[in-house]
């Protein structure tokens, strides 16, 4: 439903939309780019994409990150302050990344 409409607009719809985040600016930008890269790379396999994101985040920002990628789920998580990103990608995918050790 939604993708054809977007296609007609000629890609005016942003492919990435941060729904909720409390990360600092540079961290947010970096994380979003990473998520986009991972999702594009593993377009068919959410698990590998999540794995890639999680491992990169662990390396860059410290241990115990958690990543969930999917199209339909609900969640309630406890996260360390200033370490949560919840964004949408590609019109149908939601990515939730948070840190909690």
């Amino acid at each position, binding site marked *: 439903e939604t993708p054809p409409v977007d296609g007609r607009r000629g890609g*005016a719809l942003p492919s990435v*939309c941060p729904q909720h985040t409390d990360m600092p600016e540079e961290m947010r930008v970096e994380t979003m780019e990473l998520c986009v890269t991972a999702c594009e790379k593993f377009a068919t396999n959410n698990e590998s994409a999540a794995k890639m994101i999680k491992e990169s985040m662990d390396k860059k920002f410290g241990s115990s990150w958690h990543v969930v990628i999917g199209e339909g*789920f*609900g*969640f*309630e998580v406890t996260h360390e302050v200033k370490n*949560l990103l*919840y964004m949408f990608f590609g019109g149908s995918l*939601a990515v939730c990344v948070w840190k909690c050790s």
Partner: protein
Amino acid sequence: MRKASTVQKVAPPGPKSNKNKKKDEEEAVDAGGGRVSYGKALIKPPDQLELTEAELKEEITRTLTANNPHAPQNIVHYSFKERSFKVTSAVDQLAVLFEMEGNLVHIDSDEGRRLRAKEILANEPATVNTGAEADEEELALPEEGGREVDEVGEEDRPDSVASKTGMKEQKATNQFNFCERASQTLNNPPREISCQTEPPPRSVFGATVSQWEIYDAYVMELQKQEKNKEKQKAPTLRKDVDKSRNKTMLTETANDDITKVRKGAKILERMVHQNTFDDIAQDFKYFEDGSDEFRGQEGTLLPLWKFQYDKAKGLSVTALCWNKKYPDLFAVGMGSYDFNYQGRGMLVFYSLKNSAFPERIYPTDSGVMCLDIHEQHSYLTAVGFYDGCVAVYNLKREGSEPVYKSTVKTGKHTDPVWQVCWQNNDMDDRHNFCSVSSDGRVVSWALVKNELVFTDIIRRSLAGPESAQQRGILACGTSLDFHKQIDYLFLVGTGEGKIHKCSKTYSSKYLETYDAHSRAVDAIKWNHFHPKVFISCSSDWTIKIWDHTINTPMFTFDLKVPVGDVAWAPYSSTIFAAVTTDGKVHVFDLNINKYEEICKQAVVVKKKTELTHIEFNPIYPLLIVGDDRGNVISLKLSPNLRKKPKAKRGQDPPQRTEVEVAKMEKLLSLLREPEESLPA
């Protein structure tokens, strides 16, 4: 084959036999060689035994036995049992011709078994086969018995080899080359230290993911982006404003960085200063001039810190004042006494803790002529300027502007302000101070919110009868001092040398007038203890001490040089100090010497430097002296200058003041009696 078997019966075998041998050899040579042919006749040696033919043919039998010819044939030994010598019949006939000790061990003997066991052990480590073989050889060697040195040597080798090969058996180290020594170092006891960090803060977040939610979010995002694009087209001024705001933010943050460090930097600066001038600080605190005991009554002044400020170099010190609350802080007013060269001025605060740089600097447009620090609110400083303005500075506030300043509208003086003095809060509980100026007015200023409200206390132009002569006399006031206890009573010194005693309540008349000096009165100070005594100094070279009830001075001191300033000591009613234009400080103690100073000391290095002001520190035995080059010099008073009456134990300060008052009174009474006795 020996030819000669001529055995003699008794002849000594030695030399004869040798000779016989010689003979044989000669004959043998003959036989063998064949070259030299001697006759075959028998040559008789000259000492041969002469025997008869019959004796020569006699046959002698010899038998060969197995007896040892070297063995003794009759051994006699002493028997203790029988207490006699006994002959041993059987004698050992064994003669050992050759002895060699071998290193072969019987395989079944103890030794052999032991060695075999060792062999097995040596063979087990595979890497040291050669070592093991060497071991076998080495091990075989100690089987020799008897020779200690060799034993030792060989046991060494097995030891070292064993250690190299790492044999497990315990080597019996010999006591000669090895000894055990052990020691234990002192170890610090272990201590447990534990720490718990705070975990990073956490919060909870939840949401649902579904296709319609995602769609809605995207649509909203799109709308936001469109709005942003519109905003971007909006005038760029906003951006500049933002940028400038950002800049100020940056500078503020930069300042914040410095201000964060400011306190620490200040403390560091003081520490460095104290280290640099450590000897001065030590002198200030502890040094007592020991030579005072030998000097009789006189004392000395020890120069301590010198306070200079670069930007104030051309200015002279026009005012000095100690802060009552912080006894290490004092204010210096800078300006110029020269009528022709009037420029800017400065108000500078110094602390004794840092003589290199002032604590506060307030540049002013006009020269500062006088200043006073409030007694209770020591952050308020009243300042009088050369252009007639007065101002109040609040040290608590940032910025270099005064909080209050008088202007033409608010009744500033028209001539330089020569003295300001804080008063107690007036009836409306406002802070107020008084100022005196050459325009003849004594004005009281009250601090009301943002302004200074003035009230003329004395308008000198109106005072007195209006005769031209007297008007001429009624001119500028050059000094001012308020009584310590009596609030409304004050003294004004004039430019003609008169001193007027006035009251705040009487604005048009003076209570009394003293013909004090022939020139302008530079300073008037009430005594800290005695309520009736005040001192005045003038450029007519004199210092005079007065009792305000009597018209003539009690004491007069002629210093032969114009006197710049005079000050009472806060710890004694009879000690005061004065500075003169020839760069000297004079300290007087009336208790000790009524006619001369007890200390006269030049404190400036350069000639022609005039000293302009002097002040005693309220607590420490310290003087500060200002000169006309903008320098302030601090001096420590030696013990002779600080003589106080001996305090009895447990004497309270009020009692001390009474003692001081009594001291002064005694001096005055000596002078008064003759006066009273004079016929009126």
